[in-house]
């Protein structure tokens, strides 16, 4: 420890602490622009110059490490003189257009200028003008305001993983710019808006809509991925105008993904359903809540009375709150149905009943930075978990080895040690090879089911899988780690695969052999919570695939657009079409719900209270930040009144807090979570090793900005390059084999479903696969996300009706 003194206050700090960190600890405010605690030190703005005893020049506090006995003066004559002179330099070329600048009121330059700037400028020459850049639909630029602090450059390079912005030109001509004609495409790009200390980078969707002081700021939880990021929702006149990160070091640090930041634009969509509606003779009619609920209850009762409880299927979105999931389950139970599921995009349910507990991430979010060896199985990380991949990037920067087994070879923007890109069907074989290699390395064998033992006997370990096993075991090029901190994560592409059971079982076995943390990282904000509450079929119940393949008479949908949100869009549509009654609790009226009979408008996360449980098992409740739109009501209230109307006992909750209490049985939530989370399997799972299919396999990836009804309706997110029209994307070699060239029109078929798509080359796709995005109306008519698919070239100028 070092003893230093700042402005006469003594403080003890660690070796390597900089003056600015020490001052921050003491609560002494040193003005700064370029310094940011999460970014590398640039020392270019010079605003933090302070006087240090024995130095004749002022020193930048951000870049100067303290030495024992150092005496620092941040407010001395020489320090303030230096700071004021820098302030003057920063302002001479700044346009001072605060009245028309979006940053006004929350601008570091403005704030610090009040303290350090002169009332009148001495600069009478012509000011510099810098051309604005179009860097995409999310971030607006006013480059003349830029003070060249390079926070945005450093963020995109260090946190985002790719230097999409740079400082080009010398001297006064130095300007921040993207690559020629390129936009900034980072999935974390919105953070540069927060980082920009001036109004050079502002939010494009929010531009010119409100002044920061007119906004009411309310805390909430981001509902689009399993991270549970803390957000601050800014509201004016009852309307959500923007979303910013709320700092939470252990979850989202001070960042936010673009999806969580800009999804709010979908809340104000014209699609929003404002009143209950009933379909009468094929036409939608608006109605009141009482009529709608009584009608819905009557239908549910009639059908379950007539055909039994099993005639009802309940589908709950994995993004629904715990309260909504819990009450939906109570209703199903009250009506005698065990058919309820939240795992809408899953197709393999063979692990049901074989788990020891609720599958989860297996560790806490900050732990990700500490791992030495990581294996990711079947995940397009940046797409599924933008901020999680940023944590892993930090681990890799610290020397961790990242290994990937996946059907997609998308660049995670970090160094990958070993990767195997194969068809989903072949991933099982690859994992079995890793298991066999690991067993050899650790001189251990596990008690395995006979089927797996037979497979292991039979297969040969290839060099690339041997390398992955060696990496996970800690062996390295220059030195070997005797006890590496290792983690294996199973992602969404694996979870949605028909051979998920095999993949997960093998992952469990590998992690058991090398002592790795095993984690499941699914899409959806409340997957773990729904699983823990058991929003899943009972012993006699049907899982989601069965409910759609063996159609039910009635469906209750909670926040689900069936053909877009389910594993098999064609089957989902068919099931809805044939049902006698479909009751949808929904935020939006859309074509996807045309087959419904009753639409009940529920509130999105900003208009309801509720609870979400993150992948790491953190139970987080939030309140409504604004009043529900029109006649919308919080989902939990609608379900409660529906329960009352149905006359089911135990539906006397006065608040979402009451529901939460019921969920956790009056215990503190963390105690329940602590008992529940467990990734291990109860018993040996007999796995299917002989699935051999030589045909083409679909990779039905859900694009980053199509994952749920809200993001699908956010115009700025839909304008990004991640929103492409669905195509049949294949590896160049695959196209050659099929005799296709880019731009060809092909008829793709899955079972009875088909679609006409354009062929596009994508060398990130494993051979033997066709990447056809899901959650899009154009491909909703197709079948299973990861199922077999055929591709046929359509002769030019022949009209095809698919």
């Amino acid at each position: 420890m070092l003893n230093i003194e700042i402005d006469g206050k003594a403080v003890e700090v660690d070796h390597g602490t900089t003056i600015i960190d020490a001052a921050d600890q003491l609560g002494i405010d040193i003005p700064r622009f370029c310094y940011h605690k999460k970014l590398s030190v640039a020392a270019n703005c010079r605003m933090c110059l302070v006087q240090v005893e024995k130095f004749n020049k002022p020193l930048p506090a951000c870049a100067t490490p303290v030495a024992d006995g150092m005496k620092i003066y941040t407010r001395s004559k020489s320090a303030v003189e230096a700071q004021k002179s820098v302030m003057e330099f920063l302002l001479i070329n700044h346009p001072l257009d605060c009245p028309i600048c979006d940053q006004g009121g929350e601008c570091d330059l403005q704030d610090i200028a009040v303290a350090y700037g002169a009332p009148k400028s001495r600069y009478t020459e012509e000011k510099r003008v810098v051309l604005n850049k179009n860097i995409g639909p999310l971030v607006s630029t006013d480059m003349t305001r830029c003070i060249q602090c390079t926070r945005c450059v450093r963020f995109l390079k260090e946190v985002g993983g790719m230097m999409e912005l740079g400082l080009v030109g010398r001297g006064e001509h130095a300007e921040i710019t993207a690559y020629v004609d390129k936009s900034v495409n980072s999935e974390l790009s919105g953070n540069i808006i927060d980082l920009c200390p001036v109004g050079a980078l502002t939010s494009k969707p929010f531009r010119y809509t409100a002044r920061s002081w007119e906004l009411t700021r309310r805390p909430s939880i981001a509902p689009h991925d399993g991270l549970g990021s803390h957000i601050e929702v800014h509201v004016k006149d009852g309307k959500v105008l923007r979303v910013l990160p709320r700092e939470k070091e252990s979850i989202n640090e001070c960042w936010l993904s673009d999806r969580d930041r800009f999804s709010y634009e979908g809340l104000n969509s014209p699609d929003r359903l404002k009143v209950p509606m009933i379909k009468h003779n094929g036409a939608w009619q608006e109605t009141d809540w009482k009529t709608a609920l009584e009608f819905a209850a009557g239908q549910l009762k009639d059908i379950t009375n007539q055909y039994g409880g099993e005639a009802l299927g309940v589908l709950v979105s994995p993004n629904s709150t715990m309260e909504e999931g819990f009450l939906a389950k109570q209703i199903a139970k009250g009506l005698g149905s065990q058919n309820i599921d939240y795992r809408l995009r899953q197709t393999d349910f063979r692990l049901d009943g074989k788990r020891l507990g609720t599958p989860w991430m297996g560790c806490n979010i900050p732990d990700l930075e500490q791992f030495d060896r990581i294996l990711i199985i079947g995940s397009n990380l940046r797409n599924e978990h933008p901020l999680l991949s940023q944590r892993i990037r930090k681990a890799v920067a610290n020397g961790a080895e990242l290994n990937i087994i996946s059907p997609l070879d998308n660049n995670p923007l970090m160094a990958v040690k070993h990767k195997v890109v194969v068809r989903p069907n072949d991933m099982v074989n690859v994992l079995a090879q890793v298991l066999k290699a690991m067993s050899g390395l650790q001189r251990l064998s596990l008690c395995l089911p006979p089927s797996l033992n037979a497979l292991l006997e039979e297969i040969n370990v290839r060099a690339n899988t041997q390398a992955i096993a060696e990496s996970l075991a800690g062996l390295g090029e220059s030195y070997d780690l005797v006890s590496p901190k290792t983690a294996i994560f199973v992602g969404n592409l694996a979870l949605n695969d028909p051979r998920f059971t095999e993949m997960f079982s093998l992952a469990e076995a590998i992690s058991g052999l090398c002592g790795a943390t095993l984690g499941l990282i699914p899409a959806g904000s409340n997957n773990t919570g729904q699983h823990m509450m058991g929003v899943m079929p009972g012993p006699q119940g049907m899982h989601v695939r069965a409910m759609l393949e063996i159609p039910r008479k009635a469906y209750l949908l909670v926040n689900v657009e069936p053909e877009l949100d389910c594993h098999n869009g064609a089957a989902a549509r068919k099931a809805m079409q044939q049902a006698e009654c479909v009751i949808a609790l929904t935020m939006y009226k859309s074509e996807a719900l045309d087959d419904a009979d009753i639409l009940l408008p529920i509130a999105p996360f900003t208009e309801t209270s509720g609870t979400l449980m993150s992948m790491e098992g953190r139970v987080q409740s939030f309140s409504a930040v604004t009043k529900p739109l029109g006649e919308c009501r919080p989902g939990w209230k609608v379900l409660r009144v529906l329960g009352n109307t149905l006359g089911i006992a135990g539906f006397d909750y006065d608040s979402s807090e009451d529901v939460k209490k019921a969920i956790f049985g009056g215990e503190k939530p963390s105690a329940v979570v602590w008992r529940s989370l467990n990734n291990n399997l109860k018993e040996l799972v007999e796995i299917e090793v002989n699935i051999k299919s030589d045909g083409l396999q679909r990779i039905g990836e859900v694009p980053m900005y199509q994952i749920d009804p809200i993001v699908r309706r956010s115009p700025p997110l839909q304008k990004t390059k991640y929103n492409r029209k669905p195509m049949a994307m294949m590896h160049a070699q695959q196209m050659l084999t099929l005799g296709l060239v880019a731009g060809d029109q092909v008829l793709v078929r899955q079972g009875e479903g088909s679609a006409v798509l354009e062929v596009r080359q994508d060398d990130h796709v494993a051979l033997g696969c066709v990447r056809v995005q899901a959650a899009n109306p154009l491909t909703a008519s197709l079948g299973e996300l990861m199922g077999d698919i055929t591709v046929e070239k359509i002769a030019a100028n022949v009209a095809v009706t698919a």
Partner: protein
Amino acid sequence: MTALAHNLEKQTLVTLRTITEPHPGSLDTYVKLGGYAQLKRIVTEKVKATDIITQIKLSNLRGRGGAGFPTGLKWSFMPRYYDGTKYLVCNTDEGEPGTFKDRDIIRYNPHQLIEGMAIAAYTLGARVGYNYIHGEIWEDYEIFEAALAEARAAGYIGENLFGSNFSFDLHAVHGYGAYICGEETALIESIEGKKGQPRFKPPFPASFGVFGKPTNVNNTESYASIPWIMQHGGEAFQNLGVYNSGGTKLFSVSGHVVNPGNYEVRMGTPFTELLEMAGGIWKGRELKAVIPGGPSTAVMPAKNILGATLDYDGLSKAGSSLGAGSMIVMDDSTCMVKALKRLSYFFFEESCGQCTPCREGTGWLYRVIKRISEGQGRMEDLDLLTDVSSNISGRTICALGDAAATPVLSFVKHFRPEFEYYIQHGRSMVENRE
């Protein structure tokens, strides 16, 4: 040889000792004059690195790039025991107006530079060296590449030199003409393939240099002095000069003299002697002012420089500094306002733009001086110029800020009446005097 042809007999040739020969730049010439003998002796006799550094310290050789930092001391900063590659860098990024000495060393005596660098590499344990040559002297880059090829073929650089286990690879690297790349950390960034921008120091190159490895950076003239020192001993080099300034110095004399060019003279030579070698002021005019070490050193009015000796202490006492020895001589027809405008424009154009005071301040200074030169000056501009210059000085990442401030401060200080005249009359005091 035009730039060197004058009064060779009066010069003391150390770094340019081949200049009097018929083919000065060739390997044969250099070897004939005893070249590479020192390298061979040091390597084959396994002379101790500490002994070499002792000689360099005794020689009182100070950095010829402008800062005048003692070379021997700098060498002793390099980590002796380091498990990994260490680098040697030669700074031939000669880009300041009025500076043209290093290019003549490369043109007329490249092998002495190569030998000096090889001796330095041996002493400091560097395996790889780079000579970073300014992008606007392309010919020198080609000459140096040719000299490297000769030296490589003759076994003076490369693997296992003279049968020893000492190996040294030397490469020529060229910049694209940015002045800032003469700043050693910007130069290092440029070698690494990045935009040439100075790094914040510490860490210094000796601990974190090229590719993050310990690196020694010296000027061309400094390296070229090493073989002479090793041949004659540190003391002999010191004795060529005066106290605190050992050896000889190449002065690039330009401006209003009869014979502009490079002159290698002993440290401590009176200014008047050098001026005489250069043929005196042209057209029979009077000396008005001299910038003695390049634009980043303070301008000296005639009365201050005429009595001065040319060494570090001598010029410092007279109110300026030796810098890189780039003498810009101005006669009495020179308009100081316009001269300063040109210098300010240079720093305005060459600021890298990284840190605030220099990026914003150099443009401000230039615009104010330009405005004065266009007859739009205001009396308070002179205090403003002084103030803005002082605000840049000492507050930037590298020394370019100070370099940009110095001419403004010194011009306004020494020639204030001329600036006031220009502001009052809207025209120059010295031009169009009829």
